[in-house]
């Protein structure tokens, strides 16, 4: 599939990667899809963060690669070939170990890809390594222990220990009593950043928004009656201190600001996550208590800026009207996505969101999409904070758009399932 390339041209990054990937052969098949391309998660979890690193190597970023960097990109992939082949071999072993251990929870690609890359660097290729199978079994057991039941159980025991409860309740009360009233600022630059974040993200502007405390300032209005309620962040007239909580379940989590401290941490544990980058349980609980009393109930200024950006980018978005007057480029792009969604609903012959069968809450969320949007954006940012993942300027649009897409796909699934409960053939 080698391509000839004219001088001065730019080449699609996907084509270069596909080409370089094909040269690696069958050894990387476990990391490839049926078309022989690297899996979406191979790109997301291995090639981008560990091999090409477009953040550090801007020449490897974007959809098109300058012709002068083509060979270098090819070389970067082919140099990583042995490590990727070993990663693939470890992945195969881990899947076998997982099957033997009867583990079914979670997406193995999310859980093991980066672990396998580490194993590849530590041990090389597992072929001929005498204890490869036991290493694989241990890794599967480790990953399992870090997420899910074991961690949630430790969290529950810590938070229901009578001595701790008294101390933590005191901390929570103090944190909320000491809340500083944030001051609004007149000129804030959010719209300017929203105009460029999808196309030419301005790192300087992004840093300035955080440095000037714009996210915090924009939280000032949340304590006014109905503001946080209208954003879907609470069911209360205005935010009230959360309780510590002693139980949590994946289903029917309340809106973010109404979640107990336990529920907030639980939700983050059960999402795809990397426990090794998180703090120990007592510090996480204390951290969560302080976070709950902070602006937007988030602890990092960039997260708060992202909430303010998400609020502005999602405001006025309507299911029925096409793209009309937009407040920023990002706002226009989200509105355009919602207009496409209405078309996709028609093409997929989905039930009309206003038909009799659609439950009120789903109807409400479709017509007032900013509410589920801000709830999910908050949960994403909260998870990023717990994992200590920073957000760079060029990741903001991916985040704002990705959250919207995920809200819409969930709505679509819910609409689709409505008619199937009635003895559908599916």
């Amino acid at each position, binding site marked *: 599939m080698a*391509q000839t390339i004219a001088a001065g*041209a730019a080449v*699609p*990054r*996907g*084509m270069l990667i*596909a080409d370089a990937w094909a040269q690696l052969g069958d050894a990387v098949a476990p990391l490839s*899809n*049926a*078309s022989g*391309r*690297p*899996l*979406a*998660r191979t*790109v*997301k979890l291995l090639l981008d963060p560990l091999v090409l690193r477009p953040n550090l190597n801007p020449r490897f970023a*974007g*959809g*098109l690669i300058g012709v002068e960097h083509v060979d270098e990109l090819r070389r970067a992939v082919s140099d990583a070939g042995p490590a990727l082949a070993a990663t693939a071999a470890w992945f195969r072993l881990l*899947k076998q170990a997982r*099957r033997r251990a009867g583990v*079914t*929870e*979670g*997406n*193995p*690609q999310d*859980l093991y890809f980066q672990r396998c890359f580490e194993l590849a660097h530590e041990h090389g290729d597992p072929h001929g390594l005498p204890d490869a199978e036991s290493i694989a079994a241990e890794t599967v057991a480790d990953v399992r222990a870090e997420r899910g039941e074991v961690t949630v159980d430790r969290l529950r025991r810590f938070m229901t220990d009578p001595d701790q409860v008294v101390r933590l309740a005191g901390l929570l009360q103090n944190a909320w009593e000491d809340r500083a009233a944030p001051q609004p600022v007149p000129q804030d630059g959010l719209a300017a950043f929203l105009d460029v974040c*999808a*196309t030419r993200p301005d790192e300087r502007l992004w840093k300035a928004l955080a440095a000037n405390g714009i996210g915090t300032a924009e939280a000032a209005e949340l304590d006014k009656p109905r503001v946080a309620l209208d954003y879907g962040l609470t069911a209360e007239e205005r935010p009230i201190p959360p309780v510590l909580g002693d139980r949590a379940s994946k289903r029917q989590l309340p809106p973010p600001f109404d979640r107990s401290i336990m529920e907030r941490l639980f939700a983050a544990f059960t999402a795809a996550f990397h426990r090794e980058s998180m703090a120990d349980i007592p510090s996480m609980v204390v951290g969560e208590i302080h976070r709950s009393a902070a602006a937007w109930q988030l602890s990092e200024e960039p997260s708060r800026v992202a909430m303010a950006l998400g609020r502005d980018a999602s405001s006025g978005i309507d299911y029925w009207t096409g*793209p009309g007057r937009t407040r920023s480029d990002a706002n*226009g*792009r989200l509105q*355009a996505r919602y207009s*496409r969604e209405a*078309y*996709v609903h*028609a*093409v*997929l*012959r989905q*039930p*009309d969101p*206003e*038909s*009799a*069968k659609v439950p009120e809450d789903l109807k409400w969320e479709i017509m007032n999409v900013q509410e589920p949007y801000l709830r999910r954006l908050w949960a994403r940012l909260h998870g990023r904070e717990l994992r200590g993942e920073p957000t760079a300027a060029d990741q903001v649009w991916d985040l704002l758009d*990705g959250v919207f*897409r995920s809200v819409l*796909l969930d709505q679509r*699934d819910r609409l689709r399932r*409505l*008619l199937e409960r*009635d*003895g*559908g*053939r*599916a």
Partner: protein
Amino acid sequence: MTAFQVRRVRGMTLVESRRPRPHLAPEVAQQLPPHRPHPECTALTEARGALLYWDVLDRSPHPDAEIHDEALAADWLWEIYGPDAADAILHASDSIATEWESPVLDAARRLAHLRWAEAWWPSSHAAAIPALDTGLLRAEAAWRTAAVEHLLDDEEAVERALAEADATAAEALDPALGASELTAALEDLAEDYGVALRREPVHLRQEDWALAAGGDRAVDFALASGGAPVDWTQVPQGLVDAAAGAAWTLTQREGGLTITVTVPAAPEARDLHLTARIGGVELPLILDPETRSYSGETEAPQALLLLPADRRVLHVFAPDFSVGDERNDPRRSPHRAEIIEFARERLTDPAASLAERAA
């Protein structure tokens, strides 16, 4: 060779096989919104940065595209149109032509077609188009999704598709059609993505392919009667016979005037209620398995008799599915007959989907 016009409007790049509105001045036509096919004919794949759609009646191997983010689409556009045409699209050409073939293009098109069939397959007793097995359609869709997951606008597309696939339907498939290949592929995918495959009880086919009973039953004292096609967009797939129309009769009985409405059901129809609306009267229609039709009757005001014919138009919809919008006049949907013909062709086409060939 497929030829396309390329134009840029409202921040989008449109790759279109049909010239929009030839009677308009070029500078006006240039500014028109995307020229999308009717939803009933649209096979759609949602890619990163672009919608790709095929008009199933065109039978073109290459889709039209609405590119809303060129940087994202650049990554994979060459797999659909070929490197040269993709390069031309991204570098402001106003037309392209391509003969590109690739397994990725094929998988994207098959996936789009499977989603079309799930939504619009015109199952009908009257036209002898059998119902498709939805579980099998979705099982194949999961398989095709995995082949194009790198270009889809959904990071969880494979998990989503697997979660709704029905492994039993794949296992029950005729081995000659490739049951073992499909089943093995699904099991591998389920393991790779950590999804537990669903297994539904096998649905027994009770169809005997007699034409629907009912139709023009003689009714005493029929004062007026009429019929109308059912708008597909107002009912879910697989409920109403896609080729037959709804019929109404107004009869004089002892108690007064009665209106009766009958709508032939699709093969293997589900028991979902319909609503009929005519001249201001609304009545529920219920599936009668005996006659294989939805029917209902209610008292009608005398005024119904006096209404002019154009205001006595029968409109049928599923209230659980639509709000009964009457904007589309199904009598003005000539493509429906073509879609039924297209479906008939697919039943014997060796390149069709597994569900179509198995039906």
